[in-house]
Every structure is written in C-alpha cells, then in structure tokens.
C-alpha cells in the first residue's frame, strides 16, 4: 500500500447529518466548565475496525436509523456552539446533529491493517476519520463527526472525531458505546448529561500560580485549532501485558525488595521520557505532563472533562542523569495535580484565554483502561481500535491505549513528535525495549 497523492484508496465520499430521532434538548443551553474550555483546541480521533458480519445486510438508512435511536439518548453533542453575551461559549441543544461521512475503500480490511514500517503509523488511520476542526464558522460546526468506510471485503471502519471540549477520551468511548447498545435495541434509562458547572467559576478567584502544564496561545477567535511550528509524525508500537511486566521488573528490580512498584503506564512513561531526553540533548526535557483518569469518582452517564486529572512532573536534575527507577518514583510521587488551577486560570480571566494542554510539555495520556473495545455492533466487537489525539503542541504526546494483537491483550503506545526527532526516538525505543 502506497499512500501516494495520486490515488487515494478512499473514494465515493458522501456527507450528511444524523441527529436525534425525536425532538430532544428543546434548544436548552448547556454550559461549559472551565476545564472544557481549556481543552477546546484538542480533538480525539478514534477508528474502530469491524468485520463484515457486524454490518451485514444493513442499508445506509438502516444504519442511520440505529444512529437516530442512539442520539435520542445522547443529544448534547448534537448541538452547536453559541456565545453568550459575555463571550463565553455554550452549547445550544438544537438537534442539529452529528456529521456523517460515508466512504468506500478499494482495499480489504486485513490488507489495510497490515503494518508497514516505513509509513507514519497514524497516516492510514487518519484517512478513515475526519480532520475537521471547530470553526471558523462556529455556528455551523459539528463537534462530532463520524466516518463509515466500507472495505472491499465488507468490513467497516467507524471513525469518530470528538471535540475535546465535550469531554475526555473515556467520555468519547462511552458516548459511542451507546450506539453499540442501540444496535442491539438497548437504551440507557437517562440521556447523557454534562457535568455541572462549578459554582466557583462565578466567584472568579485568581489561581495561586500560573499552571505549567498549559500554554497560553492565540487568540484563536472562533477557529478552535492551533498550527504546529513543525510537522508532527507518529510512531506506535504494541506491548503485551507480559512484555510490560518484564519492563516493569527491569526498572524496579527484584520484587522482594521493599521498593515501591512502578505500574506499567508509569514504566512506559519513564522509558519514553528518557529516550526523548537523550535525543533532545539541547533542550533537556525537564518537565512533562501526565493525564490520568480520576480513579476516585464515577462519571457514568456523564460527558465531562472533569474526570481527567492533568498533572505536572518537574525535575531539577537532568533526566539523562536519573535512573529509570528514580524517574519512575518521581512520576509516581512528585506529580503536581494542576487540574484545579487550570480551571481557575480559565474562569478568573474575563478574556477567556486559549489554552494548549496536550503538547505544551511532552504529554503522556493514560487510556489503558478506556472502554474502546466495548463498542459492540450487533454482537460483534472491533478487530482493532486505533486512538489518536490531534492538534497537539510541538513537544509531543504519548498515548497509551488498549490493543489486541494476535489474540493477546496489551497496549499500543503511540508517540507523536516533531518529524526531525521521531526516527531517532523510534530507533532508540526499539533498542531499549528489546533489552528488557
């Protein structure tokens, strides 16, 4: 497969809109929290690959009918953004809908999923999901876009483009999982709702200090996207749980010792951080951002950005001089939760700043327990799911999401960095991981 510009494998593209089957929302105004607005420049792009049996015998109208039934219970993402008198954006629940893109691919599913070393790993998946951002015409921009690409063999790729302003990746996964339930005629008791606005937003208290995990950019106006200084490329690799356990023990040493155990995600962070720091010798990577789900509270039935904690880890000592174990302990114990001060920084400023969160520092996002394989279409699970977070800053993003390869459970680690250092990082990572 050569992704040349002459002939794209994707053709027969048709764009339409799908929305709730009944009047929902009733033009209600859904307010956005400070955290929502802080994440507005990022987009979560997930591609689910299904075998032919999942959609067999369904016409496009049949598929659309399941979507209409689904969105009856999830109508907030079907709205459009408006600005209140103070200039603060909110969502008008007007049933405008989700943009649906139908496409065909001239390759079979298996052929498409075969790994090719020389390609940017994200590139082929990017063809199956929309890259549209919100704005410049905010009135008519859909926050959610879905692409249904039919392969030659009958398999189907479902590409979900989800504006991060609505919620985090866990929320996006829960949202689309409801569609799977709708195809099996199961519906939730209550429609999806958004987390309430914190009352403290009205008090506009100034934060104690400026958060270090975000960067003020823009002003972007109504076009919610940032252009990168350099081209970003992605390299991804798969690691089974067994391999992760080996990595873990290679970092922590003997289990009998009384040292604190570094969990698999943090172990991966350690390795990748060190590789990147070694490659980028001039600009020593002394600060990283870690995004993890808040394990305490349950956010079921809610679309929100409050469930993800944004933590900043800083080291005064150059990273290359630290052992993996020390780095791991630093990540575990010295991470500063900046979620609250980010929200305060957003709410206290009347000008409503534009923040860049992912990619301001090298950012690690932990999605290893995201329910992406729970999307069950008429009894069929996806054969593969690929996650990506687009429109990120120049420092890069490392995404860890669940993966299933050769019938073996594990994770896929997706590293997005500027194109000038990605190949070096790739070779170094391969070397480091093979040693474990």
């Amino acid at each position: 497969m050569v992704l040349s510009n002459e002939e794209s494998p994707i053709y027969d593209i048709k764009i339409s809109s799908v929305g709730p089957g009944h009047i929902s929302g009733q033009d209600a105004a859904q307010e956005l929290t400070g955290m929502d607005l802080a994440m507005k420049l990022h987009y979560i792009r997930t591609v689910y690959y299904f075998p032919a049996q999942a959609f067999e015998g369904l016409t496009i109208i049949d598929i659309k009918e399941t979507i209409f039934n689904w969105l009856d219970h999830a109508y907030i993402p079907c709205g459009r953004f408006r600005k209140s008198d103070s200039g603060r954006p909110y969502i008008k629940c007007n049933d405008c809908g989700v943009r649906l893109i139908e496409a065909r691919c001239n390759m079979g599913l298996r052929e498409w999923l075969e790994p090719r070393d020389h390609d940017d790993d994200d590139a082929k998946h990017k063809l199956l999901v929309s890259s549209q951002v919100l704005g410049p015409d905010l009135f008519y921009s859909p926050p959610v876009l879905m692409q249904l690409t039919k392969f030659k063999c009958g398999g189907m790729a479902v590409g979900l483009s989800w504006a991060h302003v609505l919620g985090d990746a866990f929320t996006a996964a829960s949202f689309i999982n409801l569609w799977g339930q709708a195809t099996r005629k199961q519906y939730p008791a209550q429609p999806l709702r958004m987390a309430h606005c914190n009352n403290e937003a009205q008090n506009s208290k100034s934060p104690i200090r400026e958060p270090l995990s975000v960067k003020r950019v823009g002003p972007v106006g109504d076009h919610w996207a940032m252009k990168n200084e350099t081209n970003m490329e992605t390299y991804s690799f798969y690691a089974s749980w067994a391999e992760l356990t080996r990595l873990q023990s290679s970092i922590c040493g003997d289990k009998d010792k009384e040292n604190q155990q570094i969990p698999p995600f943090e172990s991966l962070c350690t390795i990748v951080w060190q590789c990147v720091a070694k490659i980028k010798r001039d600009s020593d990577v002394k600060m990283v951002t870690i995004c993890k789900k808040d394990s305490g509270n349950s956010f079921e039935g809610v679309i929100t950005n409050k469930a993800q904690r944004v933590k900043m880890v800083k080291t005064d000592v150059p990273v290359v001089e630290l052992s993996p174990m020390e780095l791991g302990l630093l990540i575990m114990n010295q991470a500063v939760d900046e979620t609250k001060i980010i929200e305060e920084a957003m709410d206290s400023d009347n000008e409503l700043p534009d923040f860049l969160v992912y990619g301001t520092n090298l950012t690690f996002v932990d999605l290893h327990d995201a329910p992406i394989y729970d999307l069950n279409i008429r009894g069929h699970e996806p054969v593969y799911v690929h996650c990506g977070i687009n429109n990120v800053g120049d420092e890069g993003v490392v995404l860890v999401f669940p993966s299933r390869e050769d019938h073996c459970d594990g994770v896929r680690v997706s590293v997005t960095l500027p194109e000038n250092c990605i190949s070096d990082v790739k070779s170094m990572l391969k070397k480091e991981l093979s040693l474990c």
Partner: protein
Amino acid sequence: MPENSPASSTAVQRKYLKLCYRHLIDNILSYLLISITATAAAVQLLRLDLLQALFSSISIIIISAVYFISKPSSVYLVDYACYNPSKALRSPFSFFMENSEMIRRNERKSLEFQVRILERSGLSEETCLAPGFHYIPPKLTTEDAKFEAELVIFSAIDSLIRKTDLDPGDVDVLILNCSVFSPAPSLVAMVINRYKLRSDVRCYNLTGMGCSAGLISVDLARVLLRNHPNSNAIVISTEIITPNYYEGNEREMLLPNCLFRLGGAAVFLSNKRRERRRAKYKLVNVVRTHKASDEKSYKCIHQEEDTEGNLGIKLSKDLSVIGGEALRSNLMTIGPSVLPASEQLLFLLTSLGRKFFNRKWNPYVPDFTRAFDHFCIHAGGRAVINEMQKNLRLSAEHIEPSRMTLHRFGNTSSSSLWYELSYIESKGRMKKGDMVWQIALGSGFKCNSAVLKCNRSVETPVDGGPWEECIDRYPVHIPEVVKL
C-alpha cells in the same frame, strides 16, 4: 351562528321554530311525494278490478327491479394507508438551516427569508425530507428521486396490503398521481413490476396536476368502476420532492423548499358487493372545479426558471385569495347536493334579496357543519388553512386535522387529505354515518372536493397508521412564531 344559551322563553321558542322550519323544508319533497303517491295509488286501486290491480302491481315491481339492478353499484373506499416516514429522515430546523447555509453561502438574504418562513410555517421539527436532502450538497439525481419513489410508494402499498389482505392479482385498476417526477418507465409501471400485477390491469399515471391530483385520481377510479362492475381499484397519491428542490434565491420560489415534505398514500376502492361490509367509507360524490380560464388563477402556481436558470415553483402572493375564489366556485356546485334544503333556501333568498332589494345585505354563508361532521382541508400552508377556515366559518376543532397534519408531516401535497383522515380516525372521532368532506387545492388553479360517508365506526388505536406513535401528543398549540 353563535349559540344563545336558552336564558329566556323567547329564545327557546325561536329555537323550536327554527327546528320546525328546517325539518319541514329539508323534507318537503319527501312529504309531497309520499302524500301524492299514496292518494293516487289509493284512488286507482279502489277503481280497478283484481286483474288490473295485479297487472299494475307486477309492472311496478318489475320496473323497480330493473331500476335497482341497472343502477351503478356504489363505490366503496375499503381502506387506505399512509406512508409513515422513518425517523432517520427527520429534518429539524437547525439542520435545514445548516444545510442551506453550507450550500448557499453567498446569499444571506435568502437564508434569513427561509428562517422567517420556517418560524411562521406551523411545521414541527419532526417533519421528514427525502433521503437525498440530508446530504451536503443534496443528492437530487433521477436515481435519488427513484429511490424516494420506491421508498414511499412501496411502503404505503405494503401497509395497505397488510391492512386489507388485498391480493395484487385482484387489482383491476391502478391509478397513480405524482405531479413533478415522471420517469420512463412510469411510476405505475414500477408498481406493476414490483407487485406483479396482471397484464390487463387498467393503469393510469397522472402527472403535472398539482396538490389536488389525489381527488382527480379518486374521481377517475370512480368513473372506471362505474363502467366496470365487480372491480378493485388502487389509487396512489404522492409527491416525490427530490426533483422539486429549488437551488436559487428568488423568494417566491423558496417557499416550496420550506413547506413540502415526504409523504404518500395508497387507497383501496371497490364496487364489489363483498367489500361493502368491511369498507370504511362510501364514496358519495366528487366535484371538480377548474379556474384556469381566469388568467390570475392560471399563473398562481407556476413552474419556471428564475433569472439564474434554476427551476422552481413560483407561488403568487394572492394564493390564499385565489384559493378562496376557487373554493366558492366548488361550493356552488357541491352545495346543492349536500346542503340541507333549509340552508339552500336561505342562501337563495339572500342572493335574490341582494340582487333586487339591497346590495348591502351580507351574503349568506351556508353552515356546512350541518352537512358534514368532519373536514379534511389540504394542508397547503398556514395561510391557506386560515383562509379556508374563514371562508367556511369552521371552528378550531373542525380545522384541527389540517393544522395538526401540517405540524406533524408538513405539506405532503396530494396525500395530505389521507393523513388528515387518519388523524380523525386515530382520535376516535369517526362514527358510522358521519359525513366527511375532503377539499383539495392545487395548481391550475383547481379546487376538488370529495364527499365520503363513514360505513362503519373506526376503532382506536388505528394499527399501523402514521399517527400511531404520536397521536397522544396531539392536538398541540402551535404558536404564531417559533423563535429559531
């Protein structure tokens, strides 16, 4: 006429006088006929001997028998089915506006005009558009129109077959009306192909006859059934809106985009004696009025290309007024056959009085609610319905089926009358003996009306009807302006 509460005895007396007058005049012919015949028969029979009396009686019996046998058998409307669109074809206003904005980026004024139309249209956000309209840009090819035609027509016919157990091989007459879309082979051929109708079926495909074509088809079926005893007829009324989409910016031509929606109906008519028992209605009369000889009426609804070459349907500003005039013409024809004699006498006396005595007398508008129990007025648009209500002096309840059909389904053109009839049935208001008046208006300018008599009370809930899911929410209050 306003009802006075019987407060005083004079009011009560006046009421009884009115009732006596009406009863006497309404039945005057019957009284005269019976008394004359009885007197003549008695006189004659007394003077005749046995043989002559027997001969006279037998002659009378034979003449009556010949009369009844040769009388064309009544046409019954056995049942009908309306297309119930899938909710996947729903078109909320917000989506309609977004679609229009994305296609017509430069002309802000047309967009604002369409917003104002939608706000005042009386349509809800549950009306449905053809599948091709949901695409950006809309898919308006012949293939898309055919897809819509198959979707609407086949669903309606399947529903009718389910309701009536009709065998496609038993269909003798097939009439389909669809104004704008006319492919080759025709839509009737499409139906015959799908349902494998007999090769000798009498089929007719009516095009170009506008929103009133539904009743023209019913009239044609009636005439054919009169000439062919013991036959079944299927009438399909629909408007395929895919080719109707106007892509230009002229205001008078943008209205159909905002009002026309997906819809269709299939009606089963028969003159077979065995269908009489289960038929829902008896088709009493169809009256057609054509005003094309008047220039203004002729140009009122006109399909033409605008200055940019976009094809659309231009609606004149005088549409409601012309509609009113066409209705009055139709009333003049249908009035005598349906109005009770008392109303006709009053109308005659008032007209003579206006002509010879005093022009300033108000013209007497007959009270049609005395002749009919239910009214199905084509849901052409809010202004049209208001005008009809004013002209016929109907109450809000009489006009409710039209308003609610416009709200739930939009303007479905020739099939709207059947959605309205279905509404009345779903509300449990249709009882045996009820008289229904269907009035259709359309380009030409035409006003066609049909009179139906309910043959058997219709039980609720009406299975498989288009109102099945939502009848409990109706009637709704429709505000003058819905703010978008």
